[in-house]
């Protein structure tokens, strides 16, 4: 077969995505992206503890609407985050995601940002719901994501209203 625009690893994740689906009674949920731009990602996390009593991501699942890169990065970040402490997981960078996939076409790099943003949002959701301490680094990231979301919503008001209705 002719080499396509995506690497073998990207295609492997796309063909058989890891950890997709919902977690019922998830401890945290991260919603990012929007339908107008073509990518909507939702990450569910379940929190547990490791031997040192640190909180870790015990389980993680994704639901994604989007292109091959969006689906592959969603799948990749679930692999990267599983078992990590919350602190470690919140620091997973887009470079780490791209590296784990081999490579991404330059025009698709924003999909990797989306995946790390989704994880930040899920962790933030868990910490804030449980009134736990939120590091400054995480708070800054959350604010940036929230601000971007607000701007997109303003720009595409009619369309994002419809999306919310569809997501329920």
């Amino acid at each position, binding site marked *: 077969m002719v080499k396509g625009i995506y690497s073998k690893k990207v295609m492997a994740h796309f063909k058989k995505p890891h950890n997709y689906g919902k977690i019922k009674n998830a401890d945290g949920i991260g919603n990012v992206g929007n339908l107008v731009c073509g990518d909507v990602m939702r990450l569910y996390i379940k929190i547990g503890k490791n031997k040192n009593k640190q909180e870790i991501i015990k389980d993680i699942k994704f639901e*994604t*609407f989007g292109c091959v890169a969006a689906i592959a990065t969603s799948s990749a970040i679930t692999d990267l985050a599983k078992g990590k402490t919350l602190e470690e997981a919140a620091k997973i960078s887009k470079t780490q995601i791209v590296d784990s996939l081999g490579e991404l076409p330059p025009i698709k790099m924003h999909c990797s940002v989306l995946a790390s943003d989704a994880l930040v949002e899920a962790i933030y959701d868990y910490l804030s719901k449980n009134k736990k301490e939120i590091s400054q680094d995480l708070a800054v990231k959350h604010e940036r994501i929230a601000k971007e979301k607000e701007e997109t919503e303003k720009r595409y008001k009619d369309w994002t209203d419809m999306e919310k209705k569809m997501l329920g």
Partner: protein
Amino acid sequence: MDYGAATPVDSRVLKKLGRFPSEVFGNTMSLHSFGQEAKAALEESRDILADLMGAKPQEIIFTGSATESNNLALKGIAFANKEKGNHIIISPIEHPCVGESAKWLESQGFEITKLKVDQYGLIDPKEVERLIKKETILVSVMHANNEIGTIEPIEEIGKICREKGVYFHTDAAQSLGKIPIDVEKMNIDLLTGSSQKMYGPKGAACLFIREGTKINPILHGGGQEFGLRPSTVNISAIYGFAQASLLCKKEIVKESKRLTQLRDKLIKGVMAKIEGSYLNGHPIKRLSNNANFWFEFIEGESLLIQLDMAGIAGSTGSACSSAKLQPSHVLLAIGLRPQEAHGSLRLTLGRWTTSKEIDRVLKVLPGIISQLREISPFKKN
């Protein structure tokens, strides 16, 4: 099933071309016998293309691509007629080579008006009539749309232009050889045709220019093609284009009937088997080989790659698959929202598409759609 993007060269054309690149290589401008043999092949090709659309041979010029023909039509007419006026009317669903040429002309002081289309992509000829003013020099509306397959009321638009004394150009890259065209009856002044959409080789296209039309060349050089397209003539490609045209003409009625049946089988099957599927374009006034859908909660690039893995080629108007990350201007013009355009799939049939292949698509596609919906947050519980 992406014959709308490109067609393979028919083996019968290849056979006719057999000795061309190595033996009929002469420069058509040379007076020796090598040159004259190429010249004879060029004129034979011109006769064939003229005959295909009811034109005179001297009204056909050959170019390198449909993009070039469309550039020549718009820019050539604009600059040759700027004494008369600076106003040009185009449709909003033209191929980018027309849309971008118009945009560039706008930057050169021409005024561009875009028509509206209805939900099927159809132009209302009455709107053309209303928009033509004293300064209008050209109307350009494509014959059949490359994405959604809608066939425009060219004859009526041409009639209005004729009555108003305005040149009328139509881009027939998708329709020439598929739909019978008569430039006289259809009141066309300029028409673009493309070899690589009708089983001819790439690198050849034509522009019909009605005798007496005021037009400037956009290239300047040695006077080939009546001075309108100087460049050494690509005789192999042009001769192949002509041979491909002969085959299209011979088979046009039968092939169109066959493809229409396959197309309708595909459309009916998809709509029946896949929940949340919609047809883009007109149900009847559409190219015999074009089916275009959009699916709820589906992103087109993922869909295309899944289909590709199953050995089925298609195309999409999704932003995620375009170099500019913009959804298709055609789908937006017919009223689709960006999130709907994301879920579009175009399947275009051709000379070697069989009923079995349609069955295969109908078998594979529903599974792919539900698999993608399964991992999406929009799935129904």
